[in-house]
């Protein structure tokens, strides 16, 4: 196993190196940065939903929390290294609490969806109503509907005047996404990841085998939230303002659409789904003939009906069907040896 993991990470880094220089020829780096950030957000839900079986309707809550945590601490600290760490830790801690409440109560599917949705709504309503000056954390006013503008954006650690922006910010986002992707790959190959997949397949069986599924789900949920929070912190740097809109239901819906379209149970799918749909939305936003929301809704309905597995699994199936004869035989023989060694 470790060998193929090394091989895979080398391939991933090689492809990433090609893409990081090739992509700016097609799209400008400012747009690319947000696509990468959305890709990371998609990956966060792809991890907990596709591999942990936890359908979270409020992934955007962690995204928003990350962004707000960054903005508030950046105003108070005036330097960006610690705030970026906060943008990871705060959502993770919040998710751990929330996850513990849900999973130790043995809530599943729809009820999980309701609670995550409701918590997101509570945050949305709360943040929206904080316009009055009494809502202050340190020096940062929460600002209610207007959001928080004018905080310190990303700088080189220790040097608050050297901002990372423009092309440099794009490279930073790209590196962050690649690192997160590799970490997720590593996590899924570890025994923790395999057990998480086992829990997705059959919760009861895994707990009968002696694994504490509640604790494991909580941890996985918190990891997903940490990734979403990092994406939120980067988003705050990209937009240079954070608003309550980050917690809105529309944003939540979009993350779910990305995962469905890209493909659940894959790591690449949600990233590709997020980036391509966000780019599509960006292109659609430049015309006013057809409403944006209409197209997004139509895409979601059509995918649920006709391609519920998503683009990436469909393409890899197609690939396997047309070119993968040799591979299939290989896999078969591998499975055979495994049976023998087990028996």
């Amino acid at each position, binding site marked *: 196993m470790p060998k193929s993991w090394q091989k895979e990470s080398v391939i991933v880094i090689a492809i990433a190196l090609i893409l990081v220089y090739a992509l700016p020829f097609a799209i400008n780096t400012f747009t690319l940065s947000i696509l990468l950030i959305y890709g990371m957000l998609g990956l966060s839900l792809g991890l907990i939903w596709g591999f942990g079986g936890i*359908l979270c309707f409020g992934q955007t809550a962690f995204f928003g929390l990350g962004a707000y945590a960054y903005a508030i601490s950046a105003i108070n600290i005036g330097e960006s290294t610690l705030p970026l760490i906060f943008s990871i830790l705060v959502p993770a801690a919040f998710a751990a609490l929330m996850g513990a409440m849900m999973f130790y109560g043995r809530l599943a599917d729809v009820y999980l969806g309701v609670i995550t949705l409701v918590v997101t709504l509570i945050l949305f309503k709360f943040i929206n109503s904080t316009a009055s000056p009494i809502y202050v954390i340190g020096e940062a006013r929460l600002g209610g509907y207007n959001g928080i503008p004018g905080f310190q954006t990303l700088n080189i650690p220790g040097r608050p005047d050297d901002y990372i922006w423009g092309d440099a910010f794009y490279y930073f986002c790209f590196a962050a996404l690649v690192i997160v992707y590799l970490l997720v790959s590593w996590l899924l190959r570890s025994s923790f990841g395999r057990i998480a997949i086992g829990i997705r397949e059959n919760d009861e069986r895994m707990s009968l085998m002696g694994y504490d599924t509640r604790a494991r789900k909580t941890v996985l949920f918190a990891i997903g939230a940490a990734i979403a929070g990092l994406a939120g912190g980067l988003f705050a740097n990209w937009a240079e303002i954070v608003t309550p809109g980050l917690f809105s239901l529309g944003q939540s819906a979009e993350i779910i659409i990305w995962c469905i379209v890209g493909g659940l149970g894959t790591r690449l799918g949600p990233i590709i789904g997020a980036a391509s749909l966000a780019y599509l939305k960006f292109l659609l936003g430049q015309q006013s003939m057809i409403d944006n929301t209409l197209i997004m809704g139509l895409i979601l309905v059509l995918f649920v009906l006709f391609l519920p597995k998503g683009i990436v699994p469909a393409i890899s199936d197609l690939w396997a069907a047309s070119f993968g004869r040799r591979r299939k035989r290989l896999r078969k023989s591998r499975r055979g040896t495994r049976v023998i060694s087990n028996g």
Partner: protein
Amino acid sequence: MDFGFVILVEILYAVASLALISAGLAVVFGMMKVINLAHGEFMMLGGYAAITSANMGVNIFIAMLIIAPIVVGLIGLIVERLVIRHLYGRLVDTMLATWGLSLFFIGCATMIFGNTTTGISTPIPGFAVGDYQINGYNFFIIIVSVVLILAMLAVLKTTRLGLIARGTMQNPDMASALGYSPDRIYMATFFVGSALSGFAGAILAPLVGLVPTSGGAFIAKAFITVIAGGPALISGLLSSSALFGFVGQVFSFVASPVIGDVAMLIAAVILLRLLPQGVTGRFFKGKL
């Protein structure tokens, strides 16, 4: 004394409007185990149908009570035939597909009616109780909700159609073995559920300015009411809307409407944590 009366009316109104908002969703979820996340948009479409036909000169009560439910019911029928029918038994997929539909309808409404607020004035004048002014329309909503719940109870309990529907709800295979096509019953149920949503949207339309996205304000409330209510259709609907309506309204009085909404949502989270199967999963078991 007067103040107490006002508070009582307001709480009753909160409970009634919650029951009204959730009725359509409860029928669809209780009968078919389908969560229709486009419910809020059905209500929004019902509101638009009522306002449009009222502006064309139809009597406002006819527009609200007859035209809006029929229009939205028909839309629901089309949706059921085209989308939902293929997804029965796949709870999460239906949620996602109906969420897509909700976005689709928001887009449609934005293109047709524009992103502006439309509204009509309430057709019933207010009146004074002591020093306080009460909105007469609130009474109308309370009465409509009571009548609606009684009508649902009567249909389900006493008519043959209700018996068939309840039977299908309990065991679709058995109903189909007895010669009733579950497919057609589900179709009819979805029609009724969407019609109820449109009805609720039309009744509430005079109170709120209507924008294409106003469905979003309803869906969360309806969703938590139905889920917290649990498997029993009417007693679940009544108990959870009574609870949430009460909590929400009391906190609105004590603090502010926003705190009221937040308190209601927190109550829902706590309730689901304590009773994961909903109120009627524990109490009133086997009742309607």
